[in-house]
């Protein structure tokens, strides 16, 4: 069965339907360059409402395994690829990617010249696209129709057994591995929604606050910015991805939409304090305007070495910091996982002082 991918600029690709064969979808078309970790990528809530193009041509090679999901189901709205593995032999695999997509009602298209598609996105920037069962009359493509980008993430809390530290995680669309890391580093985690107030968080008696990753435009979360301003006065705070952008916005910096974003697991980030450069996992379409940070109390601590996007911030004098990349990896390299121990360390040294 054929499937049609029509881009906002009128370009059209024909391929074979995979996953949910009949579902049609509109979304923001993005590409990721990671060659492993499709399961983690597809279940990353930050990809909500996005159609993911994999630049690596073979997807689904090792099937779907338990414990790799970053959220209960596929978060992306559709998948574009060159070849989907039909049979899988990995010992941990419980189903094929195709079965997983079908089960999650997510449509996909295979057999596409994904390199050609990627170059279009690179040139024209991220754009809306439709995945349909019949060719779409490109003139009828509604350029103004906006897709609802904001998700109300499901909230769950982790009332844990006795652990020394308690982290309240504000969930904008958190990846499971962030919670996993916090737990592994010895923290109890309570997850709250962005509707939470400072008082409600304070009532939980946290030792630290984590602002999670999530999909969409950070400027849509203005309601929560005052809460961040209060939180940073009282608790060690760690922002990841969208959380990083919100910390910036809360302190008066600006964010902007990037042409085609950073999506991949090979992005070099330089720590400006130590001069160290590490390879990081990234997935963001918006970024903090690095020049706007100078007008805020924040300090830029890290940049992507190729395009100098702002990759890290800290609040001098406060145990408050954030990174644009994903220290929890999944997928991607583990070089930045030490940020979690840094966060835990801040809770144990400065944390008490802060809210005493």
């Amino acid at each position: 069965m054929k499937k049609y991918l029509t881009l906002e600029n009128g370009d059209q690709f024909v391929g074979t339907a995979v996953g949910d064969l009949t579902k049609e979808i509109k979304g923001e078309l993005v590409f990721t360059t990671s060659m492993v970790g499709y399961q983690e990528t597809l279940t990353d809530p930050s990809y909500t409402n996005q159609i993911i193009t994999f630049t690596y041509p073979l997807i689904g090679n090792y099937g779907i395994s338990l414990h790799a999901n970053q959220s209960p189901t596929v978060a992306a709205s559709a998948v574009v690829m060159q070849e989907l593995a039909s049979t899988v032999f990995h010992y941990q695999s419980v189903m094929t990617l195709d079965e997983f997509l079908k089960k999650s009602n997510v449509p996909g298209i295979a057999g596409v010249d994904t390199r050609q598609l990627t170059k279009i996105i690179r040139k024209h920037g991220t754009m809306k696209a439709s995945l349909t069962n019949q060719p779409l009359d490109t003139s009828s493509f509604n350029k103004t129709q906006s897709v609802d980008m904001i998700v109300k993430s499901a909230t769950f809390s982790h009332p844990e057994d006795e652990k020394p530290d308690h982290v309240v995680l504000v969930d904008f669309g958190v990846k499971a591995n962030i919670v996993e890391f916090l737990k592994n580093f010895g923290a109890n985690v309570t997850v709250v929604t962005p509707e939470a107030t400072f008082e409600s968080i304070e009532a939980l008696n946290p030792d630290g606050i984590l602002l999670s990753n999530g999909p969409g435009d950070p400027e849509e979360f203005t309601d929560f910015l005052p809460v961040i301003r209060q939180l940073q006065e009282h608790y060690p705070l760690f922002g990841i991805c969208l959380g990083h952008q919100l910390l910036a916005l809360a302190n008066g910096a600006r964010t902007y939409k990037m042409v085609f974003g950073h999506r991949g697991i090979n992005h070099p980030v330089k720590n400006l304090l130590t001069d160290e450069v590490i390879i990081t996992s990234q997935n963001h379409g918006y970024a903090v305007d690095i020049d706007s940070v100078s007008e805020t109390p924040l300090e830029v601590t890290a940049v992507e070495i190729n395009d100098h996007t702002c990759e890290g911030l800290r609040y001098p004098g406060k145990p408050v910091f954030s990174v644009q990349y994903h220290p929890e990896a999944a997928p991607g390299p583990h070089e930045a996982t030490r940020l979690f121990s840094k966060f835990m360390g801040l809770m144990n040294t400065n944390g008490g002082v802060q809210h005493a």
Partner: protein
Amino acid sequence: MPKRTDLNKIVIIGSGPIVIGQAAEFDYAGSQACLSLKEEGYDTVLINSNPATIMTDDEIADKVYLEPLTIDSVTAILKKEKPDAILPTLGGQTGLNLAVELAKKGILADLGIELLGTNLHTINQAEDREAFKDLMNDLSQPIPPSKTVYDLQTGLDFAHEIGYPVIIRPAYTLGGTGGGFAHNDDEMKTVLNRGLTMSPETECLVEKSIAGYKEIEFEVMRDHKGSSIIVAGMENFDPVGVHTGDSIVFTPTQTLNDKEYQRLRDASLTIVNALKIEGGCNVQLAQDPYSEHYYVIEVNPRVSRSSALASKATGYPIAKIAAKIAVGLNLDEIINPITQTTYAMFEPALDYVVAKIPRFAFDKFYHADRKLGTQMKATGEVMAIGSNIEESLLKAVQSLELDSQMQASLLPDDAKDKSLAELLETIKTPTDIRLFEIFAAIGKGATIKQLHESTKIDMFFLAKLMNIIDMQKELTTTMLTAETVLKAQKLGFDDDMIKAVTDVTDSALAKLHAMADQHLVYKMVDTCAAEFESFTPYFYSTVGTENESQPLGNSVIVLGAGPIRIGQGVEFDYTTVHSVKALQSAGYNAIIINNNPETVSTDFSISDKLYFEPLTIDSVMNIVNLEKPIGVIVQFGGQTAINLTQQLTDRGVKILGTNMAGIEQTENRHEFEDLLIDQGIAHPAGDTATDIPGAHEIATKLGYPVLVRPSFVLGGKGMAIVHDQDELNDYLVPALKHSHGEPILIDKYIKGTECEVDILSDGNQVFIPGIMEHLEGAGVHSGDSIAMYPPQTLTDVQKAEIVQIATKIGESVHCIGMMNIQFIVADQVYVIEVNPRASRTVPFMSKITHMHLAQLATQLIIGKSFDEIDLQPGMYPEPDSVYVKAPVFSFAKLPGAPTALSPEMKSTGEDLGHGKTLSEALHKALFDSYDFDSDKTGPILVTPYDAKNIDLMTALDAGGYPHQVYQLDQEWPDNLAFVLATEDESDLAKQLTTRALSHEVTLFTAADTVAALVKQTSAKQAG
């Protein structure tokens, strides 16, 4: 850190002659490194004894020493040059070992020379078994437990401790002969006892067997600051147990999920950081396919064959970047030369799949042991890029240049008559053709499970092989439609493969291709999966909807030589690269087509455009049709390119240089004879035969001995001297089977002095750089002979005659460009062979005359006259000093392969020695070729057959080499100067040569070599 300013002059050590396990990849690495350092403004001095390399070109380094890679020779150069530092990590194991020795002997410290790249401690930690074990323990990195044992009981105890299965590796036996696996005590007793007996030191290594694990390699870069990246992760198709150089390899990894991949990546980075590597490093790991468990197998603290592969597979130039790191630059300070806008500090993202298949010499040495194990046997490799496993694998198969029928049908001859059960048994043993045997087994109905049980190859890969055979079946059983053809094309089937299983005509196939909604297009290799705009002129074909390769216009295509094999080595890479340089300076856009990842010619920065593609007619024509070049140059790509000439001509492609008619005149037996008779040139009488009776008739008529060979051969493949009817019979039966109906050539064998010349011609005039005289008489392949320049025994009259004949031949076949002509000087000068192309000796003569012969030839090819390029007809004046080119053999790597020098070429590489006298030049050349110091005398062992050569024995005894006739199973004497065995048929000779190789004693296998040697030694002593 910015680059260091306290350094001025840097010495780079090359890897010496090409041997199995150390080939052209180090020419690529060394050349890149030299240019990279020059680019940073350093003075570079290069030492390498291998003339057939780009790195020893004058332009590559500021100073080039074509000198032996021995401690004495290198020390002398260091003393003279007084460099600030030495960079040893780009010259393979040879370069690394030399540097370690120089450091350990205190020479570097004495001369105040710094070791760049990776320090001595690190090298030791990575290379010394015990030090490595300790380090891995410190880092909590698992390695397979192992122990060196000298008796059975210790071995059994250790096996009980670590658990079966174990692998037993006898020490100091060729290719690990006598070793094997043990799954229980009984097997252990048998194998370990055998191993202990066979090891000269009664020593075996007992190691936990991890055969069947997935073999994964990471190419890591790390800088002084500690930033580190993975350039490529590679996954072997063959599981642990086959040397990675002999394995089919895919990149990126295919069957690892993110957790597994990151775990191995973490391990690699941990190790490389602990070792404080500064530059490139290779880490080999084994992943249990059924648990999270893994082992670290090996770490190479230097640029390696795998890094050449990783560089070509990703576009990331490892050696170039490693050299910059060595002088202090950090990864985030070095621009990625591919994108020109991003930095070297990133991990390449591929949007394609790369397959590498090794190339073996077993098509020449079919009696050698073809079983693959932990000792590398491949002479070269091919790489192919595609959009899926099947496509990249089949494109690599098309690049192999094996039996063309097997390549197209995927069915090996021998497998056709085997039952499924037999095939499933056969594929248990990894060999050079196992891939094709698996295809055959699938054709006979094998299931993935059965294949996996026999081979332990991951079912993921086996399923892909199954897809290929299913496709083949679909092609044969259904009506061909545009859809089926497109489907096949997506899986990598070229037209030859489709035609091999269907009866579709060329024109019908072309129509079906045209009807499809996707076509063959070319995509760019850009290191970043199109995320950034790139400018790399590096392309591969695949099926898609967008072609990225824009025709250059005003272009010339130069065909490369494909994989390195015996008879077609790195010299053709050298000539290809030079041809490109000449085209560029003449204002043309030069395009290279080649598929060998080890070489300089497949460095995308060499040409205006690189197509990394099979050298088949389909593949070349697709590119020709796109690029519409002015013409195609076939002279520099060895026999690979020459063999395409007829088909290109038939398709109307303009061949630049000597045309097909001229090529045919030299390669077609009858036309060649007519030409020689016509010109009154003497040649050995001979004829062609297609059957046994005919052959006997001709041989009897000519009189024995006769020289027999198949037509259209490479490196004397299948050539032999036969002395009587029985020998002729022995030769003919297999030869006729392999000749596919082509006739067998039979010539009168003439004993005499063999010589050769390369000629340059514009079709009217002929230039001869020089005559090379072979030290060994006719009957030893020219590639295996020691060549001397200028000739040492020829008279002026004979030389003049050779020049005259060469000129006549050049003129009469309208040679435009280069040719190589071989002579025998006996009662008169005979011509025995003409090769209508650049030859093995071109780099050697180029280095000596300081003329870039391949460049001059290219200028003639594109229409320049002798006057325009300032070339005088006739022979170039001879120098006062003497140059020697000596062959290098890899016998130790190929147990069971014949060793006695014969018309069938056996050497894998060569070196150059230069001196005021022949004896000095020979002395130098023998170091790196035969590993022989001609200053040292001592006792020698000879076979009974050689002992009959009374004159030679007397000379040897008198010359300081008292000979002893070898007895079967005799005790091995110490202090042997060398071993002489010119026959390799008897059990005694086989044992003698095997032991010589195991004990690393110089092995001479031609009487002439030794005779000349003793003559030189005696002359020196007398003088």
